[in-house]
């Protein structure tokens, strides 16, 4: 297959590639960061108050069903072509992943561990931060990986909001409009690599902050 790659064009645009990669990571990080914080509190509420569990999960599910292009289009008329318009949908789409995974992480803490923590005299917030959160880390990071990868994919869609956004999606959209495959690949391939790279980094991070999980695997 002839990919029709124009090497000279690529060499001339490497500085732009660096800028767009940085922008891509920035747009994704803002969304993942804000989405994580919101989801964390929703998940804590869901796990602490069982009655709130189903409504909170249903709420985040509903958000996820809204088509992204439609949402961007609608938001333009409300918030204009701004960073807010970019981030609101990106944050919304992380919620369903985060809320489910963080809640599942808290649910995965064995009841005898909770019982022991109470009996030892942890206060409820000490128990949350020193027992439940650390033990939920594997599932929280599983959620983080999914959210990061899916957000990195979605950032490319924000290129429809104009040249100031889109990260690597800028090249994809422009390459498509100009029927110039080199530019299209120039956006698509790095964005895929970026997703792989971030995922691999998160796996490493999980291993380094959950030494007990590794030791369990070795022992069994």
């Amino acid at each position, binding site marked *: 297959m002839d990919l029709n790659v124009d090497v000279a064009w690529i060499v001339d645009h490497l500085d732009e590639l660096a800028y767009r990669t940085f922008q891509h990571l920035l747009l994704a990080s803002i969304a993942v960061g804000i989405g994580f914080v919101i989801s964390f509190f929703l998940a804590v509420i869901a796990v602490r108050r069982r009655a709130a569990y189903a409504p909170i999960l249903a709420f985040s599910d509903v958000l996820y069903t809204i088509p992204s292009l439609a949402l961007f289009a609608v938001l333009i008329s409300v918030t204009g072509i701004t960073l807010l318009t970019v981030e609101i949908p990106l944050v919304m789409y992380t919620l369903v992943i985060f809320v489910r995974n963080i809640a599942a992480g808290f649910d995965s803490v064995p009841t005898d561990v909770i019982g*022991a923590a*109470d*009996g*030892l*005299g942890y*206060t409820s917030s000490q128990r949350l931060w020193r027992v439940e959160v650390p*033990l939920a880390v594997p599932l929280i990071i599983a959620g983080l990986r999914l959210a990061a990868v899916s957000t990195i994919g979605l950032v490319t869609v924000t290129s429809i909001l104009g040249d100031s956004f889109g990260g690597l999606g800028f090249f994809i959209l422009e390459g498509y409009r100009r029927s110039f495959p080199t530019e299209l690949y120039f956006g698509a391939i790095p964005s895929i690599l970026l997703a792989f790279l971030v995922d691999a980094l998160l796996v490493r991070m999980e291993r380094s902050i959950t030494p*007990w999980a590794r030791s369990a695997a070795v022992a*069994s």
Partner: protein
Amino acid sequence: MNAVELEFLNVSKRYGSLAVVNDLSLKVPAGRICVFVGPSGCGKTTSLKMVNRLIEPTSGEILIGGRNVMSEDPIELRRGIGYVIQQVGLLPHLTVAGNIAIVPRLLGWDAARVRARVEELMELVGLDVGRYRDRYPAQLSGGERQRVGVARALAADPPLMLMDEPFGAVDPIVRERLQDELLHLQERLAKTIVFVTHDIDEAIKMGDLVAVLQVGGVLAQFGPPAQILAHPASEFVARFVGADRALKLLSLRTVADLDLKPADTPDGPLLTQDMTLRDALSEILAAGTMSGRVVDESGRVVGEASIEQIAAALRETAARKPA
């Protein structure tokens, strides 16, 4: 810290119309092991958990050293009481040292004091510091986990320990060793211990006092193990302690308790002085003789024990006035 007296005064726990603990009154003297034993649904674990307020009584009072637990701050109360639970409940993300250090850290001890205390306790329960300190619970055997659980409960030197089926999850051989170790520790520590089990043999072995509970949280009998075996207060207790209660009674005494006759039997099994009378009887019956030869530590025969003597010891134990 010195042991304290624990007293239940007319304690009841009801959930709606369901009575889980019914008007429980008993007193555990300081430094004694009291075992709550009974079938499932007898409220033994609920009774235990009311002591550190993991469950709150519907009525009645629980007094630790004369102070009503309901007037204490529950968090402070729990940090001051050792707690060992059935599945051990070690925190899987903390090392052995981290688990033992939980209560001292919650109490705000400085790092050097915590470290010294952790090492002292690991030695006390027989865990090599260098080898085990940095291991995670998943890397330990069931028996090792239980030792860590006991060390953790002892960390802040509490006067009172609550043990909820602490040896329920280990195999019988390890359980017996852990029981022996705990009794051995208790000789030195003399804590007040409330110990919950569904196993009557464990209750008899571990308890200075045994509280037999029946379904609905009714106290069926409370007293020293020998009294419960010799004089069951009701049909329920008699059935619960089992048809072999005479043999269980024999397991409370050892060959050393007998007045040995001079040895004139040429055969007969060799019996050691620390053997329980139950095991001695079994050895004699298995050998098909009517007596056995008792040896001292060096293996020298010091006398003879017969089935009649064992039977006499049983009658004497059973005839003792209830304490």
